[in-house]
């Protein structure tokens, strides 16, 4: 069975909700839809207090090239445009909507029929994806239309679908595959058409045998160009570079774009959202989110509308346990710890993980014993212990020489350190500084070259 070549760790899977069916989460009386739901520039609100909206009405437009549309997930009246705290506690603008009924935009096809024929052409698909506010659903929330428009020098060869779900606890992708295999395959085919390629792979880790079987059967029945690739269990297989390496055996060059390998990677949730956008004209207004944790009464997979309070989802899964020590948006390896549960559902939220008190605290760090376990674990072939020391001592030249800029912040180093050293914390201090120096150096070199060119004229 395939996997990526360097490093990796094996955190306990704890997929508590992998047998839980998808439950439609209740729509509350008031939702708050944040305007910063994608990587890049936040969206700009285009509605005002008192405006009537339906499900699917655009309420935010892109605030730049790397940005997205946001649509109303409910029908009702705009209550106010205010700020809310996102999962990390940062204040972001949001549109509050008082819910009245559940009236959808007429353009949206709400029938249960699966639409197989892809009528739109390449550019129409990309435009539709943009208009429907699709972003990367794995958690990175990269605006999908930008990813579907690679630089003209790129030579796309295949689409790779990330259905790895290597983060412990999370099961949203898994439950999606079990519920909508055919729609996913059509979504993949739409992505192929948008990229002008005729080959696709769906990478699934071996701990989801039912999903592998179902997807293989579905693909064989009508989508022969889609190959299901079972992958050997190893974190961080869902990292874009690691997934490409595992599936087609190529390396994304350091500092380069993944498309340099000819592969376009999209999350399986994105493929489904693309299907709904292109075939059903449905904007991204809801997603599957896993609410889980060892003390959570009913670990669940909810289909939740954007803007639903996180608190409501936790209540629906049995409430916040008394022994709660930490609440994480996303998985335990790369997710973000929330300062409180007052934030709202967004496009990139694949899971809410509630950790117990005793799980929530780090053990005290002791001196590094140079065991090299972080070096063995690093999927990028770095030496985290040195990177951490260089960051701590502000030795940025040394950090650059040790390629701190290649770090994908997967956390495998901190996870495996027997001395409990906060390696990634330190690396996160040094990495942006080195990146800043690199950018400055590139800008200076460009300015110099331009000046030389101007002088030559």
């Amino acid at each position, binding site marked *: 069975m395939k996997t990526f*070549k*360097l490093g990796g*760790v094996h*955190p*306990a899977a704890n997929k508590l909700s992998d047998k839980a069916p998808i439950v439609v989460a209740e729509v509350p009386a008031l939702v708050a839809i944040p305007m910063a739901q994608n990587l890049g520039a936040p969206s700009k609100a285009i509605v005002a207090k008192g405006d009537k909206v339906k499900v699917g009405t655009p309420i935010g437009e892109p605030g730049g090239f790397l940005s997205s549309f946001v649509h109303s997930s409910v029908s009702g009246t705009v209550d106010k445009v205010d700020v809310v705290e996102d999962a990390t*506690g940062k204040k972001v603008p949001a549109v509050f909507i008082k819910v009245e009924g559940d009236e959808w935009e007429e353009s949206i096809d709400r029938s249960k029929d699966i639409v197989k024929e892809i009528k739109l052409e390449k550019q129409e698909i990309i435009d539709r994806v943009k208009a429907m506010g699709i972003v990367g659903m794995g958690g990175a929330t990269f605006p999908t239309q930008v990813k579907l428009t690679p630089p003209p020098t790129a030579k796309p060869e295949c689409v790779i679908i990330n259905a790895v779900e290597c983060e*412990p606890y999370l099961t949203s992708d898994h439950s999606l595959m079990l519920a909508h295999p055919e729609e996913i395959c059509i979504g993949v085919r739409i992505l192929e058409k948008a990229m002008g390629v005729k080959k696709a792979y769906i990478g699934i880790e071996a701990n989801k045998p039912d999903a592998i079987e179902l997807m293989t059967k579905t693909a064989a029945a009508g989508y022969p160009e889609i190959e299901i690739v079972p992958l050997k269990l190893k974190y961080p297989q869902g990292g874009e*570079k690691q997934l490409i390496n595992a599936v087609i055996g190529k*390396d994304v*060059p*350091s500092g380069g774009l993944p498309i340099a390998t000819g592969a376009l990677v999209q999350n399986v949730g994105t493929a489904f959202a693309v299907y709904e956008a292109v075939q059903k004209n449905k904007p991204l207004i809801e997603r599957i989110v896993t609410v889980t944790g060892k003390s959570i009464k009913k670990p669940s997979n909810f289909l939740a509308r954007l803007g639903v309070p996180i608190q409501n989802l936790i209540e629906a899964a049995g409430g916040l346990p008394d022994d*709660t*020590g*930490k*609440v*994480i948006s996303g998985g*335990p*390896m*790369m*997710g973000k*710890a*929330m*300062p*409180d*549960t007052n934030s709202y559902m967004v496009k990139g939220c694949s899971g809410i993980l509630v950790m117990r008190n005793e*799980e*929530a*605290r*780090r*053990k005290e760090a*002791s*001196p*590094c*014993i*140079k065991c*090299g*376990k972080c*070096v*063995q674990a*690093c999927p*990028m*072939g*770095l*030496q985290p*212990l*040195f990177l951490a020391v260089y960051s701590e001592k502000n030795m940025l030249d040394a950090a650059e020489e040790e*390629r701190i800029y*290649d770090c994908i912040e997967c*956390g*495998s180093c*901190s*996870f*495996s*350190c*027997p*001395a*409990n050293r*906060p390696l*990634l914390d330190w690396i*996160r201090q040094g990495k942006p500084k080195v990146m800043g120096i690199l950018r400055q150096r590139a800008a200076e070199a460009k300015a110099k070259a331009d000046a030389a060119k101007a002088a030559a004229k």
Partner: protein
Amino acid sequence: MLNVSLSPHVHSGNSTRKCMAQVLVALVPALLWSFYQFGIGALIVTLSSVAFCVLFEFLITRFLLKTPTTVGDLSAIVTGVLLAFNVPSNIDIWILAIGALFAIGVAKMSFGGLGCNIFNPALAGRIFLLIAYPVQMTTWPTEAGYADVATGATPLALIGQYVNGADVTIPSIVDCLVGNTGGSLGEVSAIALLLGGCYLLFRKTITWHIPVSVLLSAFVFGFLFFGFDAKLAVEELLCGGMMLGAIFMATDYVSSPMNSRGQLLYGVCIGFLTMVIRRYGAYPEGMSFAIFIMNAFTPLINKYVKPQRFGVVKK
């Protein structure tokens, strides 16, 4: 109140203490064999060595450094057992105390304690004793007991004499494998040490890189240096400190290189140096010196030998 910290939010559960405990478990087969082979002497020497090492570390942290004691990480016990494994089973207790003081006091704590030492403490202790008390350190008992036991030459010394043309019988491969020979307390049974090594590999405490490269390189150079005699080369692997060194001493986390490429280079150099010293040096035994020398090269190896990078193509 919720806890907030950066990811990752989970940990493997591994700890320094667990790593050291795994090494101790891996040392058990060889320890049991030494009890069988050398009797009460092995027990006395091992217990006193561990006691001295732990005591010295405790006293140094408590009264000299005035820092919280680090005895709990079990590394002093590992050093104690390894030091005992590297001395004859009839060594005087006071000599052992000096060795333990050198290992813990000089080689480990004066550099800053576990993680900061350049040299493997147990090895430093052994080499100090070998130079300071050469007679006591090279008089090996050939029977069980502690005081007044019969002593004799080790297989390595015999092989050395044999290669130089003396008329001696060298022990059989089976005896060397099982440990039915004279030698330092814990080094005689190759099988027991290999068993411990398999456990360490199975628990992923160590990787194969150092032991395999040491043994392969020692075999190749042994074959070259000992007259292209494969049987002698194999005996060289099974006798003396080779197995103990390759599996337990050279793999010491702190004093060995960080990445697998560096570890392979380190191992090959150790195998080569060992066979050079054994064949052409004044000592029949070369393992400890070879590891000691390569310990000194570890920072240099770390500086110049980088791991395989992801996404970097050599031009």
